[in-house]
């Protein structure tokens, strides 16, 4: 099993969620994060002085899936989240050794 972490632009969340459910992911977890990267921040003003804001609001999606679904998931996320502009985000694939469903105690594949 793998955990896919995708950092995306916030307004793409709905599309990515739909993409992932379409390929059979039954659950996912979302976190609001701030990202720093190639996409430049912007300048803000406050009482007559400027300052640069480097960190931009992003959404992190975490979804744990079976190994065989990884490619499909990457595919779906890439197409759903892409605007074609710098700052579209990243996908990271991380190994997961065990999954447990708290309610039932089920483990592994069934627990996803």
């Amino acid at each position, binding site marked *: 099993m793998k955990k896919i972490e995708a950092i995306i632009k916030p307004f793409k969340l709905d599309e990515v969620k739909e993409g992932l459910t379409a390929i059979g992911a039954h659950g996912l977890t979302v976190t609001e994060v701030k990202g720093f990267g190639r996409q430049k921040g912007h300048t803000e*003003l406050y009482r007559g002085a*400027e300052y640069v804001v480097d960190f931009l*609001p992003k*959404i992190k999606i975490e979804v744990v899936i079976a190994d065989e679904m990884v490619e499909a998931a990457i595919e779906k996320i890439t197409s759903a989240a892409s605007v074609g502009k710098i700052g579209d985000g990243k996908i990271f694939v991380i190994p997961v050794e065990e999954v447990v469903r708290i309610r039932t105690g089920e483990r592994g594949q069934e627990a996803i």
Partner: protein
Amino acid sequence: METKTPFAFKGLAAAFGLGLVLMTAPAFAEEAVETAPATETAEAPAAEAPAAEAVASEAVAVEEAPAAEAAAEAPAEEAPGITPAELKVIADTMWLLIAGMLVFFMNTGFAMLEAGLCRQKNTVNILSKNVIVFGMASLSFWLLGWGFMYGEGNPFIGLADFMLSIPGEAGKVPKEASFFFQLVFAATAATIVSGAVAERIKYPAFFVFSFLLVAFIYPVTGHWTWGGGWLFEMGFGDFAGSTVVHSVGGWAALTGAIILGPRLGKFTANGVRPIPGHNQAMAALGMFILWFGWFGFNPGSQLAADAGPIAHITVTTNMAAAAGLLAATLVSYLMMGKPDLSMAINGALAGLVAITAGCDGVSVAGSVIIGLIGGAIVVVSVTFFDKIKIDDPVGALSVHLVNGIWGTLAVGLFNTEKGLLYGGGIDKLVSQVIGIVSIGAYVVIVSAILWFAIKAVMGLRVSSEEEYEGLDLGEHGMEAYPDFSVRKAPIY
């Protein structure tokens, strides 16, 4: 975030600033000469009193030492000479000024209501609009609006007394008190627009439209009615402005909302997607402040401290608001299964707008019924505008336009002297309809022309990228709540 407007607008801003200085300069120069009499006029009621000398010497004392001592000394000498007539002028002036202050405070209510009912990412923008619109309106109404509305002229427009150039009459409520009261009304009309066009209009475009609304659109219809123009002659009655203020703002808002189009994502293939406001506490605060301010709006419109009428108006105003609140809560409860706070808020405001035209001449029971109907209307109306895909983020159209019309009609029905239901015949109602239609047509046409002109010159709507990111960053380069972890797009 490069936009093209800044340059255009910078020029505009500079021109405006310069214009303001140029325009004030002559007035200033003139007044340099005329001033002494002008201030005398202002103090006329006192100056003509028998004890004129005492008063005059006191006037100096007051200017120099407005402290406890002055207060302790002065009245004693002055008092013997004061007449009941002068005292009535004082009472009327106090009432008008205090009422005007309460109406001023309504700007706070509008700012909180609108900011609360919009998204967090547009908060600075909405506040900026609500802040600037009052500043703008003050200048604009002084420079032009007041003269078009109340100056001598013809039945269609006033054409005198710009910048209060004509001295007021002695022995009456000072003209400046009336001016202040009328000014805060004019600003209210402009603020109404702000809510309906929120979350997508460019700041400079709104700035310019507001100026013109207060300088020209509002004063003209105001002249027709309160300024003694043709609608007044015809018998149209709108005591405190359901139509003259609220519908005028509402029609301009409607035109703007249609020309701008809906916010991105509001109307999807799957139907209406509600875009909840980011702070209901702020919205509720706004509603309470507006209700409070309405105690200036309606009872102040008596323009005099006449005990019976102001007490009656205060009660009808309050009862209609309460009834509107209850009706909207109950209707939304029955329709949706839960009591909707945002509807309750709009319901109270609906009741207030609806009673505004008739607050002086309907009975208390009449005011309750007008409010109940207003509260029910607002629920249906919000849904209706959603259905016809006119996007009004704060419900300004349902509150101010629709209930402004209802309230104006209600005069023809419930006025205890001339209302249809009280045996007053159909005449009043007909006049009301003529007033509603003619004012509506005028405002829609002129606003549309202005909106399109602004669109052509400087653009009306922000880019869709800016709309996603929020106008706070795009228009102002600021965040409303920089310390909180926030999301730009709500997660549903």
